């Protein structure tokens, strides 16, 4: 069964950013936070709450894929999309199409950063803010 990432325990988040460092490290082989497909941030300075901006694995309609003019975002089983970088022209339409603000843009590469729901961030979350959920949907 395919799995999708759920960031439902953010009330437990301590803001260690380990999920981001792990995502950037494993998926982009980079030490920089800006390469991560999940972004933990505070709303209103450090005294505000931690929130996670990350793909919520849209199922029926995927606005990012609809907006893509070159077919670079393919439907992912279980929800969300997969980026085919060779087809991507770097137009950023997916970035503005995502209503939850979960598509980021890698300025150096000229391509969007798309969460592929691999679960690496959940493995490195020390407080169970993030988890993978099995979903029964096939494409």
């Amino acid at each position: 069964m395919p799995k999708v990432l759920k960031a439902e325990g953010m009330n437990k988040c301590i803001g260690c950013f380990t999920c981001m460092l792990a995502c950037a490290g494993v998926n982009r082989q980079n030490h920089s936070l800006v390469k991560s497909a999940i972004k933990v941030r505070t709303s209103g300075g450090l005294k505000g709450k931690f929130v996670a901006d990350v793909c919520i694995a849209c199922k029926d309609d995927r606005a990012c894929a609809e907006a893509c003019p070159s077919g670079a975002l393919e439907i992912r089983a279980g929800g969300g999309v997969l980026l085919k970088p060779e087809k991507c022209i770097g137009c950023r339409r997916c970035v503005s199409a995502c209503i939850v603000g979960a598509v980021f843009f890698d300025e150096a590469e000229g391509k969007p950063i798309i969460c592929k729901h691999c679960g690496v961030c959940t493995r490195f979350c020390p407080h169970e803010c993030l988890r993978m959920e099995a979903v029964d949907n096939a494409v």
Partner: protein
Amino acid sequence: MLYEKYIRVLHIDLTKQKILIEQREDLHAYLGGVGVASKLLEEHIRPELDPLDPEQPIILSIGAASSVYPVITKTVAMFYSPLTSELGESYAGGRLALTMLLAGYDAIVIHGKAPKPSYITINCNNIEFKDARALWGMMSDEAGRVIREKEPGGGKRSILRIGPAGENQVSFASVCVDTYRHFGRLGLGAVFGSKNLKAMTIIGDRSIPIKNFKAYFKVYQEIYDKVTDTEIMSKYHDAGTAINVLPLNEMGALPTRNLSQNRFEQVEDISGEAFVTRNLVRKMACTGCPVGCIHIGQFRREFDKGHDYESVSVGYDYELIFALGSYLGIRSSDEILQLIEKVEELGLDAMSAGVVLGWATEALANGLVTEADTLLPLAFGSTENYLKAIEYLAAQANDFYKNLAKGVAKASEIYGGQDYAMHFAGNEMPGYHTGYGTLLGTTVGARHSHLCNGGYSVDQSLKEFSKEKAVEAIFEEERERCMLNALTICLFARKVYDRKTILAALNALDYPITDAELTAIADRIYKTKLRIKKQLGFDLKAVRLPKRFFETPGLWGKLDEQTAYDMIRMYDEKLGAYCQIVDPLL
């Protein structure tokens, strides 16, 4: 610099508003962190001038593996301390280390004095000097808010700022880093103030490809699992360092009412457990640390009649509970949080603030000073008075507070009461009256901090006391921590980062290094610090400890003055021989 064979140093000249970047291969011999900072301090310090002279440098430095492995989260600041007129060294967590790494600087050296109140913004391809005249006089948190809203880079930046105490150059003013962390001790805030530097923001926006992913990630996972599976998670995350209040009280090592007592009769109400029950609302972490030891407590304040309340959140830790709690006879967790908030917004070191007020309270009771000096009937347990006194201190409201703002050593030289002015070579005491280990460790420690060598832990672990063994243990720990601090590892994780782990971590970053080299680096750093101290006129033989250390019993009962001085002499002799051994590399 990560994956490079040099240390990248950013020099900022506030007077001329110019910068200079150096790539120093020679600094590799100091590893990073406190090593590089000590060397840069030695190069740039002006011993003949006042610690607050514009010519004095501020050094910030991170380590060779900062932020790329768990719990390597600290940045070291080194400077000429206005409090002790001696080596200034202080550590802060938060996001600073990661942002320095991603801005592309291993070390930052700040020179000169801005012509008017200013703040600096730094990122990987720009540095700007900005007008802070309107921020001058603002509380630390308010200044942070203004900059946060005005400057870009949210989420990947760090904001350092001082409060009015730093602007007014109180000798133990602190620098707040990212709301909940601080360069607390030894007066870096005053040095910022002396340079007209209200704040700094560093944005980490560089990309750093991982060089050898497989090797790196294997070591990363091992360390992550070690950190999250071992007891440091439970000890520092659960109730946090505040959990030490009750055991230290039980041991008879909790400094109470200016150390006239070693136990506090109302300790239950200020214990870690009390904070958990009544105040704890949140825990947070420095960037890259899965532990999350930052504990946030909340209290309710009535700001107007007619049931008008606000809730206030502040960070707390053991040291603050000791200094602004038992040391001042404060009887509830809510009142301690109020005092912490006051110290926080004005930008003072909480430990020094508590200890100077403890002395002032007793000096008033003994008639060394009058209420015309203190402006208030200072008395143990009176939170209202202490809240006001902290404001007077930050503002240096009259001659008495001006003198108090120089620290307890200098104030007691003027007014008397030196026997109960509780400091080590000018630095106000930490919250451990455990025994000879603390006395020796804090006296000989390079910066007179309990964290130099953990003397309190030597007191608790030595089964049978022996002068020789204690001296040896403290020397070894002081030396080893030079290496750990060169890597800027949070000392809470010191047991995770044994030599084997450090070597594996560095080697996986393509940083070839051996165990023997780590030892040589530790020696090189320790000796550099000792040279700076000597240059600034520090002499261990001249240190005098206040009598009260020997009157109020500690963990081992009453301490013998002669034994303590014997141990200091033994350590000094050991250092004499140690410094004779020449470093073959230099």
